[in-house]
């Protein structure tokens, strides 16, 4: 059903070939294809609008360069704008100057927080830190057990004073805010230099649960609050990111399930709407499937740019 952007641009470029200069109509035709490609990659509508307006403006005002023909120039502009929004360089984790570095995870249900907790822990441990995982999801059935298994796989201890939802009880009795606070205290006493706090999944519109997340944040004053978002998410990325930004004022974004074949337009949406950096990519279910985020690779992925860049050589 979807043709790739390169297919569509090929058609557009064919008409442009040989022209020394782009007319406004040429630019509009190209921008239309780019808009469509961005939408097909799940980039949020308002972000697409802003993005294409900027590309159009730059393309119209572009100096005619000797090295590139006009259509190549547009592709170059698109690429530059994409990488710019996604962040030029990956930001590293901010470590606390004194006491343990506290990292809180937040996100929608099923986004990949608990899995990420294990990955982060293992990664930090390999760098010589001694992380402690804290089980604050007392809501999802056996979330605490899940974190214990994950911690075990990562070779990192798990602080889990409350079993969470493991019985027929619909509503768990434990207090996640108290567990978070106690977890940080535990880390101080046992001399862990990193604390990773796993929290329950929640919806942006769930005021009560969002308030609970804010309370956890206030209780532990984290150095980093990582917002975990599924790369397969569509237009809801904006609503969700804004709600979490208001709720927990996150400091960085983690894009999960990038091992799938989703184009991952959410990366662009969330980074653009919140101005927060995407820091990590989660790329599998295993405890090692984790890497620093690469804005240039993501730009190619969203726009199928690998092909496009080859294409401009032929244009």
């Amino acid at each position, binding site marked *: *059903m*979807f043709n790739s952007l390169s297919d569509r641009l090929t058609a557009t470029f064919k008409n442009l070939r040989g022209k020394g200069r782009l007319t406004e109509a040429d630019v509009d035709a190209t921008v239309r294809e780019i808009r*469509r490609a961005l*939408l*097909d*990659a*799940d980039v949020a*509508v*308002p972000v697409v*609008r802003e993005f294409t307006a900027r590309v159009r403006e730059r393309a119209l005002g572009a100096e005619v360069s000797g090295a590139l023909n006009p259509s190549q120039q547009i592709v170059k502009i698109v690429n530059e704008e994409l990488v710019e929004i996604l962040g030029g360089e990956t930001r590293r984790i901010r470590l606390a100057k004194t006491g343990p570095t506290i990292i809180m995870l937040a996100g*929608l*249900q*099923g*986004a*990949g927080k*608990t899995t990420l907790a294990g990955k982060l822990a293992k990664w930090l441990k390999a760098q010589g830190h001694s992380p402690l995982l804290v089980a604050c999801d007392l*809501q*999802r*059935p*056996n979330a605490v*057990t*899940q*974190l*214990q*298994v*994950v911690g075990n*796989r990562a070779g990192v201890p798990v602080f889990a004073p409350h079993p969470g*939802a*493991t*019985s*027929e009880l*619909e509503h768990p009795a434990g207090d996640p805010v108290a567990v978070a606070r106690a977890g940080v205290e535990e880390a101080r006493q046992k001399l862990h230099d990193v604390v990773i706090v796993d929290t329950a999944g929640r*919806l*942006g*519109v769930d005021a009560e649960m969002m308030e609970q997340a804010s309370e956890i944040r206030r209780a532990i004053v984290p150095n980093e609050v990582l917002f975990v978002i*599924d790369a*397969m*998410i*569509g*237009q*809801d*990325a904006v*609503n*969700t990111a804004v709600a979490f930004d208001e709720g927990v004022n996150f400091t960085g974004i983690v894009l999960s*399930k990038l*091992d*799938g*074949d*989703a*184009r991952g*337009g*959410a990366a662009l949406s969330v980074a653009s709407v919140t101005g927060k950096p995407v820091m990590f990519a989660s790329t599998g*279910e295993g405890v090692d499937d984790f890497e620093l985020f690469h804005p240039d690779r993501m730009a190619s992925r969203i726009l199928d740019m690998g092909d496009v860049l080859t294409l401009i050589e032929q244009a």
Partner: protein
Amino acid sequence: VRSNNILGKSLLALLSSDKIDESVWDEVEETLLLADLGTEPTMQLVDALRERVKILGTRTPEQVKALLREELIKLVDPTMDRALRTDRHADKPAVVLVVGVNGVGKTTTVGKLARVLVAEDKDVLLGAADTFRAAAAEQLATWGQRVGVPTVKSDVDGADPASVAYEAVKAGIDQEVDVVMIDTAGRLQNKTGLMDELGKVKRVIEKLAEVDEVLLVLDATTGQNGLNQARVFSEVVNITGIVLTKLDGTAKGGIVVAIQKSLGVPVKLIGLGEGADDLAPFEVEGFVDALLN
């Protein structure tokens, strides 16, 4: 607050202005795109609507509003058979296989659906064929306890999922239950090894009993990748219905429109929360109204 378009005006408010100009059509398009309908269905729908408005000479916003709703309802198709096949056969239980990508709500859906079936006085048995994810079997067993049904699981971490599914269906046959529901591990559709494994799970079950329903669980927040998911899962295990979860959030789940249309597989159920009672039948009009608001 249900989501509005970016200008803060709802579509319906917009259509209440008394002139149908280009900007109105842009807003119609935007509303549909924001619901994850996808560019192709959106353009088709807008074109069809424009055509009808032209032919009918429709001018009042109320009429256009009604036409859009009508077109969408037609597209989502109220005539599709959305009944779940969970009736016991003469000598064997009905078997329901639940599949989908990671984290969409499969295990939770199995728990909720078990609750519905129990309320219909059915004997239900769960099979924990997710032997892979941390504490997956425990999670399912907790759901089983919640709704009062037994769970067959393996004590061995990483056991063969097909043999757990086999054991569960066998136990269901021996115990003469009405329905056996098999929960499977989340897997991304581009992982061929994992998809082959799923195909095997189904084939192994079929040595014992017919699989009556293969439910693909789809997260309503999913964008255009949902179509790939449905296509590949359909190829591997021939899905018979879709469960659209997490509709209690702000996502509209519009990708199911394209899925239903291209694969002919109906959405049968919707998930509306994390509790045992948060499962409901899919209703076309309700879905369309939520999509437009």
